[in-house]
């Protein structure tokens, strides 16, 4: 297990390298820098040049990149030009928002997706099956940000049950956190729910048709037990896999949801940094989120082994 972990963690290094290289490419692409914003409307070209020199923006990008990697080795992600604070602090402060959103969305999507999927598989070829699958398909097909706007109007304005936006920290007020996160998480969960429901159904159907499950049924094991002990456990393998993949998609999705629901998350932090050319935040923010992505995928790999005895024993 330890060796497996070490291998996995080492294999994360090239991923992070690619992410940081693509980020530099992106910085190289965007014209303009932050000097105009810092210099004010009246700044002369000389003053702008002085600001660039002070921030090192006059050096060629490869030099800046080397310096950045050097700092990274010392555990320093740099300093935000605009927020006037260390990048790591700024990103870590936002991470709870995005993680709350992504985490809750995953929970919602998994619970609802599993329920729909199991229902469909167990009642295979019935109206319930079709109903569940149509629901899943609709979930897959609706643009989620659009769904979010509709939810705001419905639950925020017309019914007035839930806040229309904003974030409450879990540590401050668990109830407020849940209320503030419900609509955004539902929005983000919509598509993923559809994916998980469809996957659960098909892998459950595969497993339910297999010999050992039939044997278990034949031995008189209650239906519910068979479904949950044997079938579902095996069906977890692709589900866990999809959770890992979804983590990557979630940040992209979170950018939009954070905008619609006015949430101060990492997505909006990075978008703001791109729009204002606050390069250290772009670099640091993307690296930290890539780390989260890699970390979740390592966990996913471990769960994968745990749920699938063949993988576990094969190691």
């Amino acid at each position: 297990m330890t060796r497996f972990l070490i291998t996995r963690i080492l294999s994360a290094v090239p991923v992070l390298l690619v992410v940081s290289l693509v980020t530099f490419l992106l910085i190289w692409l965007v014209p303009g820098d932050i000097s105009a914003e810092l210099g004010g409307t009246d700044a002369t070209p000389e003053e702008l040049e002085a600001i660039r020199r002070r921030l090192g923006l006059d050096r060629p990008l490869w030099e800046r990149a080397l310096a950045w990697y050097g700092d990274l080795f010392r555990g320093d992600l740099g300093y935000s030009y605009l927020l006037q604070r260390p990048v790591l602090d700024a990103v870590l402060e936002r991470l709870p928002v995005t993680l709350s959103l992504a985490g809750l969305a995953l929970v919602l999507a998994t619970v609802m997706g599993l329920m729909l999927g199991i229902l469909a598989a167990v009642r295979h070829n019935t109206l319930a099956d079709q109903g569940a699958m149509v629901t899943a398909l609709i979930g897959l097909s609706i643009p989620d940000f659009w769904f979010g706007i509709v939810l705001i109007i419905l639950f925020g304005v017309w019914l007035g049950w839930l806040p229309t936006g904003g974030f409450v920290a879990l540590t401050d007020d668990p109830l407020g956190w849940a209320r503030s996160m419900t609509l955004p998480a539902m929005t983000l969960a919509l598509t993923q729910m559809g994916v998980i429901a469809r996957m659960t159904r098909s892998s459950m159907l595969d497993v339910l048709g297999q010999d050992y499950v039939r044997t278990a049924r034949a031995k008189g094991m209650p239906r519910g037990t068979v479904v949950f002990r044997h079938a579902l456990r095996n069906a977890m393998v692709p589900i866990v896999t999809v959770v890992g993949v979804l983590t990557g998609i979630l940040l992209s999705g979170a950018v939009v949801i954070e905008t619609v629901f006015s949430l101060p998350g990492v997505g909006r932090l990075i978008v703001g940094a791109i729009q204002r050319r606050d390069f250290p935040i772009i670099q640091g923010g993307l690296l930290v989120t890539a780390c989260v992505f890699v970390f979740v995928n390592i966990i996913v790999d471990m769960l994968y082994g745990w749920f699938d005895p063949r993988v576990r024993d094969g190691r």
Partner: protein
Amino acid sequence: MAAEAAPAPLSLAAEIARARRRRRAAFLRRLFGHPSFLIGFVILAAFAATALLADRIAPYAPTKIDYRAILAPPSAAHWFGTDGFGRDILSRILHGTRVSLTIGLWVVAMVGVFGTLLGTLASYVRWLDGLIMRGLDGLMAFPGVLLAIALAAALGPSETNAIIALTVTFTPRTARIVRASVLVVQGMQYIEAAHAVGAGHGRIVFRYILANALSPLIVQLTFVFAVSIIAEAILSFLGVGPPPPAPSLGNIIADGRSYIQEAWWIAVFPGIVIAVAVLGLNLMGDGLRDVLDPRQRVERGGH
């Protein structure tokens, strides 16, 4: 294998051709007999027809401004109402389907090409495998929306940016699928036999390996098509898709988001159109998957 090289007797060739036709007919019967595929196909056909005929059937030009009819509710003159410029929403949606389809098709083509290329290279050229796969892992960890925002900052928002960003986003998974199916095929005996009779690498890759990886690829690309229509809407909503006054479905929703309560029709109708189009593509994908590749009933994950 050797028989193909020698000129076959006429009757045999005709026999083979007939058998091929029969197989194709049977395949099409199975495909169109599949209810999901049929419904999806009808929806997509309608969508494509709208896109092609938008010029003819749209009651107004999509960019025609009428400041006397700003935010007009649905009526006989404007079935789906008008937006903040007094532009006819129905006409904009009709033309918007064209933008969505164009972007979707481009993304499918690019993802198809790059996914196949990278996936085949990775599986066929051993020493490249690690490099390509790690690179793709890295891209998967990179949020595509942010790439699109950066591209828009550099080049201005455009269809091209949206296509590039979506291609980068969807290529890694597609390449993985291609790689996985090529690896499966590669181990099979008939490939070894082809090697044995001295078939060239190019021939083996194209004639045998890719042909067998095609089914999962087609299924995957159908879903890529579906997702890229939604993704176009997201990019336009964030202001980094096709620039105004282009009538993309996402742009129309973005135009309507400030008036969602006063003029619900601006955002609601294109949202429904997107949902229906994507539904159609998903249904088609399901049908294709069932018929082409019954074993692959699970969308593949990243591993």
